[in-house]
């Protein structure tokens, strides 16, 4: 079997002098909390970001809240008033979550979206192996009677939000890396109702702010919804 040279030794030159940085971290929404983990020299560091307020700043969504890091050596440390500015998005692909009408300040359950998402998870992928053995999605047609494209236009939803975090102090948080410019990748894969509501709001927000023409009044409505939810 093939053998790989793990280290060609002196055949490549190692560059020195670069301070190691933490470039990006990844979390998922659980309720309103962003939970995630990153590794430093093989050691796992769990983190959470709990937004407490939302605002629009120069046409961009900014969440402010507490960043907590659970260091294997130093235990839990946190910083308040960390700002996370949403800079970009990634559209999700799959069954769209049902975009529900939110009732003020409450999180209504929705069996429709959960069961559809579950069905999508169970559906085998369309592959070149024995294609067609999987039943097709329910047809949806456009105004000219042509099939629509999955997860686009009205079926679209935000899959990931990318935030720039305000500079973090590595000593305070106990992380042995440069934290001066960390990007937070927030994956919207809700498994609870509050996270589902937040995904709906974030999807509306990205439509309003990140698709060419900015619709500030639509975005402000969503910011108000977020702040209502963050109050609880």
């Amino acid at each position, binding site marked *: 079997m093939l053998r790989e040279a793990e280290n060609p030794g002196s*055949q490549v030159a190692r560059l020195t002098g670069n301070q190691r940085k933490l470039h990006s971290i990844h979390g998922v929404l659980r309720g309103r909390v962003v939970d995630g983990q990153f590794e430093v020299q093989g050691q796992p560091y769990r983190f959470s970001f709990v937004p407490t307020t939302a605002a629009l700043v120069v046409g961009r969504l900014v969440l402010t809240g507490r960043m907590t890091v659970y260091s294997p050596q130093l235990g839990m440390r946190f910083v308040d008033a960390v700002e996370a500015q949403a800079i*970009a998005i990634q559209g999700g692909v799959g069954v769209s979550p049902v975009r529900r009408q939110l009732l003020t300040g409450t999180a209504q359950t929705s069996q429709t979206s959960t069961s559809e998402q579950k069905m999508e998870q169970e559906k085998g992928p369309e*592959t070149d192996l024995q294609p067609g053995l999987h039943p097709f999605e329910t*047809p949806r047609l456009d105004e000219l009677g042509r099939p629509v494209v999955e997860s686009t*236009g009205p079926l679209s939803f935000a899959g990931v939000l990318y935030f720039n975090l305000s500079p973090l102090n590595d000593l305070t948080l106990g992380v042995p890396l440069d934290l001066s410019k960390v990007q937070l990748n927030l994956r919207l894969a809700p498994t609870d109702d509050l996270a589902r509501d937040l995904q709906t709001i974030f999807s509306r927000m990205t439509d309003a702010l990140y698709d060419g023409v900015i619709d500030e009044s639509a975005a402000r409505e969503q910011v108000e919804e977020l702040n209502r939810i963050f109050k609880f």
Partner: protein
Amino acid sequence: MKSNKVFDALIIGSGASGGMAAKELTARGFDVLLLEAGPPVNPARDFTHHAWPYQVMYRGFGPPGWKQQEQWMQDTASHFSRHFYVKDSEHPYTTDPGKPFMWVRARIVGGKTLHWGRLSWRLSDLDFKAASHDGFGDDWPISYSELAPYYDRVEEFIGVSGNADGLPHLPDGKYMPPMPLTCGEHLLRKGAEKTGRRAISMRVAMLTSQPKSFMKGRRKCHYCGHCGDGCDVNAMFSSIASTLPLAAATGRLTLRPNSIVRHIVTDRNTGKAKGVAFIDRVTRDEYEVNAKVIVLAASTLESTRILLNSRSEHHPQGLGNSSGMLGRYLVDHFGGIGASGFFPMLAGRDPLNEDGKATGVFIPRFRNLDQKTRHPKFLRGYGFECGAGTSLFPGMARRLITGFGADYKKQVRRFYTAPVGMTVRAAMLSRFENYVELDPSGVVDAWGIPVLKMHIQYSDNEREMAKDAAETSEEILRAAGAEVVSTGGQMTAPGRIIHELGTARMGNDPKTSVLNRFNQMHEVKNVFVTDGACFVSSANQNPTLTILALTLRACEYLADEFKRGEL
């Protein structure tokens, strides 16, 4: 640490194209360094192809939420193959709202050849000269006759099973015997013929007869049907089974896994490439390595991303991109449209191992071949990938059969042997406005490397094609005697078919293309791009066979130019 070592050639990526380039260049005496972004693969540990769903937790679906939270875009990844794919959480990219792109990636030694679909079709001059045929877009700078000898060599080397079908727009090649059709597939073939369409055995890169002498370590397919989880007998072509071992055997290949290329380093005086800067995926140490020639085979969009990230004084818009064409003309095929149902005459029969044969029937393109077949509403065409028979998981049970309890089980058992389905694989027009760029808001990956932003949408041409495909698939199923249960569907989001192509296209004019007719950059003579990025148009055939043939041809040219001191 300083290094004066200069490799003859540095290849980025160890998938179909990178593996072929490594084999070809080492055979020609080149001292080659191959950088692979992902980890090495150990088949004994990593291939789980003979595991049954009931042997693992969650019956092979994986822990609840893992896919949505970790590998949401790696659609074909399963519990058994998830380690072949990237974690989306570490490898982000961006899109505009409402316009998603599904980017399936495999960072591992062997790349996507570890789990590819293996369908191996040639393109014809109907594809290479499509613009001359219908007036849209641009022709390729090569013709079928130029590539045909390389197709021959590739097919003989990788081993392709299939029939010679005599279709001018789907040229025949050098084949091992085809895999037999199931009963349902025979019925479907007859139905297609009733409607005036051909239906042929799929041509797949799998060994169906005794391996040839150079196919060391490979054996005939034993029809287990779990090809996507890794093939331990190496019946299916993959880099780790075929090309890389031969390259390694020359003693001239250095393979370095876990090496994520940040950018290509250029000479300040000449603007030519002199090496690459890369990061160790595990230690995060940064390295530079020198080479006389660079071959980019990192996959369509990763290669383009590396070029866009290789900005310098000579190349302020990315390497070899003074034309602004780098990143343009992104395409994918689309699927998701077709029909499914069951054959009443096959219901209730004894089940057979029919999904051990990991292939089916293909209905080749039948639209816009000539004046007689011209469609009034769209250009180009599509084919249907079809299958019929029993499968491990009775997928039809969920939506084709209703009810519950004992009666439901009875119905599932009855129709388990009867399902049939067909789904489209369709061409997408190459358009300037479908493109990738470095994300303008500065999003980076886990290693701090700027990521791509995708801009891609279907046009009316694809939508009209989808409508026609939905209608035609139902017509064929009915002609075959099937009960049609569902027709239509939704067009797949761009990227889902994993045939992303273009963005560094070939051409004769440096103002409208990035590469010349030999996959060499117009502006940087010692850089070649040999993966799907070079495609001028998509056709509707699976692209890997063409990528392999183009790589072979490019490496032959590269070696000649190298000897002549032209690089």
